[in-house]
């Protein structure tokens, strides 16, 4: 049995195991824990999309919240029932085609991704001529512009009031199906020679140009694909928490995703997935520090936002002591797992991911 067939079978088994776990979780875990599982999937999609842009192509982009916002709004507008839309838009009525249009959840999420990608393409063409920190500042600016525009387009977005009561279609199955699709797409892309091209641009853009790579095209491509999956993630997030408003898509959201991607390991797909599991769980678990506590004879009042202080400290520690994150640029693949036992010198990097 060659490695390709073996990896294919193992990938199939892994997805089956994931399915079985989700089935078990749905029947045995309470709503809160399921919500955490949902958030893990959505965060993983978002971290992967940022990792494609920043980790694999080396473009420091801080515009993720903007693309998520576009995805979330597009999806919400497509899945809200017409009657509910009529009741909710009180500042200005919703304009015509949007007020009656309705689409199945899959189509709505997909459209969210596509429209986010379209706007990313528009932004990319002027902005990706910049590099390094300048790119970070410019994308951050665009992300804020998107948010301000959303606040003011009240005949589409209901302005600052936001959209409430979005149908909660994003259950555990949808979220994990989209995660598997995202992982599949990005793994295939990154493991092909096109992935090598993206990494070449990250490592040395001048040498990449010299190798005949149209670096601008591939930077725009990577940015647009990343924004597509950011839109998907945003769409799922909107349906998951059923309420969206422009204030939700501030820089902090981008920062959270960036934290997951950096902690997991820039340039590592398995790292992004592990990072989202660890950080999402920690973020929830650390809520206890915000409650009033009694240590010995000390009474500590609850401080909201305390867990973000702890997280900032954790991030500083990561940057100081393990800059490459959990995984660095390494991946856990079936091949690396199998060669762990055997220590065989021959490696075949074409293997599938362990998720």
């Amino acid at each position, binding site marked *: 049995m060659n490695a390709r067939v073996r990896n294919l079978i193992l990938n199939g088994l892994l997805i089956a195991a994931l399915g079985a776990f989700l089935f078990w979780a749905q029947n045995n875990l309470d709503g809160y824990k399921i919500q955490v599982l949902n958030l893990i999937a959505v965060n993983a999609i978002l971290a992967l999309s940022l990792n494609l842009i920043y980790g694999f192509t080396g473009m420091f982009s801080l515009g993720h919240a903007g693309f998520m916002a576009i995805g979330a709004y597009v999806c919400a507008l497509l899945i809200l029932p017409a009657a509910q839309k009529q009741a909710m838009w009180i500042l200005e009525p919703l304009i015509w085609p949007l007020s009656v249009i309705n689409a199945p959840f899959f189509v709505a999420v997909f459209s969210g991704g596509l429209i986010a990608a379209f706007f990313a393409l528009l932004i990319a063409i002027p902005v990706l001529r910049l590099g390094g920190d300048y790119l970070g500042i410019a994308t951050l600016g665009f992300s804020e512009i998107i948010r301000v525009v959303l606040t003011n387009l009240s005949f589409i977005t209901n302005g600052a009031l936001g959209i409430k009561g979005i149908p909660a279609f994003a259950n555990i199955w949808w979220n994990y199906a989209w995660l598997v699709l995202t992982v*599949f*797409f990005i793994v*295939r*892309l990154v493991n*092909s*020679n*096109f*992935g*090598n*091209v993206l*990494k*070449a641009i*990250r*490592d*040395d853009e*001048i*040498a*990449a*140009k*010299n*190798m*005949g*790579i*149209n*670096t601008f095209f591939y930077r725009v*491509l990577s940015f647009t694909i990343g924004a597509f999956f950011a839109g998907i993630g945003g769409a799922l997030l909107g349906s998951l928490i059923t309420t969206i408003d422009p204030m939700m898509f501030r820089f902090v959201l981008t920062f959270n995703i960036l934290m997951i991607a950096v902690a997991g390991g820039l*340039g590592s797909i398995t790292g992004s997935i592990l990072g989202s599991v660890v950080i999402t769980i920690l973020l929830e678990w650390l809520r206890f520090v915000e409650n009033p506590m009694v240590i010995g004879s000390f009474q500590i009042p609850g401080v909201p936002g305390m867990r973000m202080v702890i997280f900032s400290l954790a991030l500083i520690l990561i940057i100081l002591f393990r800059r490459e994150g959990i995984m660095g*640029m390494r991946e856990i693949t079936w091949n690396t797992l199998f060669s762990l036992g055997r220590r065989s010198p*021959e*490696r075949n*990097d074409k293997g599938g991911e362990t998720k």
Partner: protein
Amino acid sequence: MTTPAAILRTENLTMRFGGLTAVSNFTIDVPQGKIVGLIGPNGAGKTTVFNMVTGFYRPTEGRIFFDGQDITGLQPHMVCRSGISRTFQNIRLFSNETVLENVMIGCHVRRRSKWWMAPLGLPSFRAEEESIRRKSMDLLKSVGLERFAEEPSASLSYGAQRRLEIARALATDPKFLLLDEPAAGMNPQESQELMAFIRNIQKRFDLTILLIEHDMKVVMGVCEYIWVLDYGVKIAEGNPDAIQSDQKVIVAYLGEEYVKYAES
């Protein structure tokens, strides 16, 4: 010098950076299928010439013709596509990638399948990926690095990194190869090997090679024709013997004082 057709020709190439003229009125005809050299003291403008030919600088004046086509001002990736490849003075490998991946990146410019075929995993796409892998492996064999295929490129020794950079340049299927100081930092033994290696790849891949080099043993050993630059101006050209006895070249390298002293 005019017997073989010129593969690369530059006409009055001039590059100014503000008030500084790095290269002025540089006109050469590089004959096809030869190994030729470009020498000159530090700061003479040799690398600037390379950067203009490969599209990194747009010349202030003058034109560059490659294989009969005007390539002046083309983007670097288009220059590469037309069949020119180069190495860098300070090695520029993709340091996070393996040795094999470095060469595979070089194969990208000739590939036909598009990026969106990658997630779909179409058979034609997979076949092309496989052929890229095979071609890269063959290239690694031809430079003697196949044992290190899966090692990170940064872990190679200095000489091996130079050879890898050449293998990567060859992966783009060039007709014309520019080597920027290939022997820099090599000991005499290594530069001897390098000379044999350069002759070998020239024959094997039917290339024209233009090299910049400070190691005169290497230059005089492999080049059939040499141009000399000093302060951006071409001061001499000819075969190695003619260059070695050219008064202007000696003055440029050793200084007028020294030449006067030696003559007296």
